[in-house]
């Protein structure tokens, strides 16, 4: 091969490297730009609206003025209740999978398959399920047994929406907790068992405290996911507008995400609701971003600790 052709070949080859790098880098930049555009638009559009009174007052004048306080309270109550159900269930599942079940156990396999399927079920199907199971079956069952058929729990309510969301977010908690449990060194378990601790004591006092970061990450991600879901709560408990705040588990509630949907689609006066709409979106997005950022930071710290 002559010296000249080798040189040309090499140059052309380098050029194709640059083209590939450029194309993939451009695609990456484009995705980041889409994200940035959305976030900037919401921040710029909502910044003026989000004041203290917007956060602390109820909507007025047919939701064309006022604030979103009841929607914030409803969202917090909903996700809190959801967390109380999802986190213990998710942690117990992860503990069973990593600490108790043998790798070949058919039950463990079935649980894993169900977890990954649950993660893929469309959120609207959870809505249908929540209505068909919690509201009309369990709720009405409670009414018939304890309230003499008086309509108390057999209607859309905070508790039913929270339980529906808890099932939806269960995979998030399980996956995150499992990862954390697997990262606990084997030696710690062995040491604990060698000191005479039982398996359950080892889990409770050695493994779980060690995995706390991962469990926390899972809980935060679940809250962030639950706070933004609308389709599953549409038929299970959320209300368009309520003059009061939810007090009991069988009350209905307002919700930030649903409020966005309502303002965007059913407003009597689009121009006057637009600032409110932007404000609500900013609050919702700010809330979920904040939660996600915290989760990402905790997780990257945890990974660094494991590597170190």
């Amino acid at each position, binding site marked *: 091969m002559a010296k000249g052709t080798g040189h040309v070949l090499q140059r052309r080859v380098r050029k*194709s490297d640059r083209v590939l790098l450029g194309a993939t880098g451009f695609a990456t930049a*484009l*995705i980041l730009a889409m994200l940035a555009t959305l976030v900037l638009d919401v921040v710029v559009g909502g910044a003026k609206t989000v004041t203290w009174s917007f956060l602390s007052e109820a909507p007025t004048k047919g939701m064309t003025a006022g604030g979103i306080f009841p929607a914030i309270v409803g969202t917090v109550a909903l996700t809190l209740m959801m967390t109380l159900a999802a986190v213990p269930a998710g942690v117990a599942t992860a503990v*069973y999978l990593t600490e108790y079940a043998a790798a070949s156990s058919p039950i463990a396999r079935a649980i894993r398959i169900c977890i990954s399927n649950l993660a*893929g079920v469309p959120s609207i199907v959870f809505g249908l399920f929540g209505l068909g199971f919690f509201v009309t079956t369990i709720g009405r069952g409670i009414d018939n047994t304890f309230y003499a058929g008086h309509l108390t729990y057999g209607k859309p309510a905070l508790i039913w929406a929270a339980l529906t969301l808890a099932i939806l977010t269960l995979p998030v908690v399980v996956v995150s907790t499992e990862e954390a449990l697997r990262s606990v060194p084997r030696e710690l378990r062995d040491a604990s068992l060698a000191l005479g601790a039982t398996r*359950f004591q080892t889990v409770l006092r050695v493994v779980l405290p060690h995995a706390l970061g991962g469990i926390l990450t899972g809980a935060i991600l679940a809250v962030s996911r639950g706070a933004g879901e609308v389709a599953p709560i549409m038929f299970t408990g959320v209300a368009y507008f309520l003059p009061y705040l939810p007090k009991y588990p069988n009350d209905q509630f307002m919700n930030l995400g649903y409020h966005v949907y309502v303002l965007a689609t059913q407003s009597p006066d689009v121009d006057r609701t637009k600032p409110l709409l932007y404000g609500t979106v900013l609050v919702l997005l700010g809330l979920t971003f904040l939660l996600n950022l915290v989760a990402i930071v905790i997780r990257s710290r945890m990974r660094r600790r494991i590597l170190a």
Partner: protein
Amino acid sequence: MAVSISTAPRTVKKAATLTLKRRARWGEAIGEAAVKIVALTSIASVVLILIFVGKEALPVLTSSELHKELTFGGMFRPSAAGYVWQPVSEVPKYNIVPLFVGTLKVTLVSLFVAVPLSVAAAVFVAEFAGRTAREIVKPAIELLAGIPSVVVGFFALVVLATWVQSIFGTEHRLNTLVAGIALSFAIMPVVFSVSEDALRAVPDSYRQAAIALGSTKSQVVLRVVLPAAAPGIAAAVVLGFGRAIGETMIVILATGNAALLDFDLGHSVRTVTATIAQELGEVVVGSAHYHLLFFLGALLFLSTLVVNAGGERIVSGMRRKLGGGS
């Protein structure tokens, strides 16, 4: 050991050590049993979803009462008026074809946007990016995944729709194209992360061998790494598809929700998910329409189960082939 203290029999006051042992044993048994029972929640959930969505959907197939209003053939074959979904009218028309075509149309547009971008980004992150770039891109895409879909839908409705209309001059302001682009926001994180995992699962020895044979970086990526990771990337597309057909709040806000059956991207569409979400609130419980909405939900549930199982299968098949490295 709060658990065992609360469960210990209080009247027993024998030698301290014996009580302690017995307490520990009791606590242990109850604790373990609790863990094992609660761990079954996920199985119970999937079974209950099948039963309770299925139960309300089944009358569509079996109830002769319902068949006076709603025939199985009428759901798929065109009536005199064509393929019409018009559940609330004097003579309700329940043709579900336009809804499924609508879902497919929007999904295909979103895949068309999301797949090239996210696979390219995955190649960039897995093969080219340095540590700093990676530590910016990956969390950013995680944040993208964390945006509530109602927020993306809102953005499509208020901002994106205006842009798309001024660029493409579409007939309807809310249309398939707008919804497809918006939907790509939701599926890009899925396609990206599964693709990136697939690229990472390709053993370094493949790359080293190609480089040793004199390949350039682009040849390594295009002719060695991508073909080896192809099944994983196919799985990414399949999982993205599964995510897209189930998405509700984006399409409900961005499609315009008119159940038209045509293939114009500038026209409004109505998807299966948006139909359920919009109509279930106002439907009479137990009516044909009510059961049909559950039937649509059941079909959606079954299709995502199949799609996800397919995706997972491809991924695990590839893992085995490449020696289980990730």
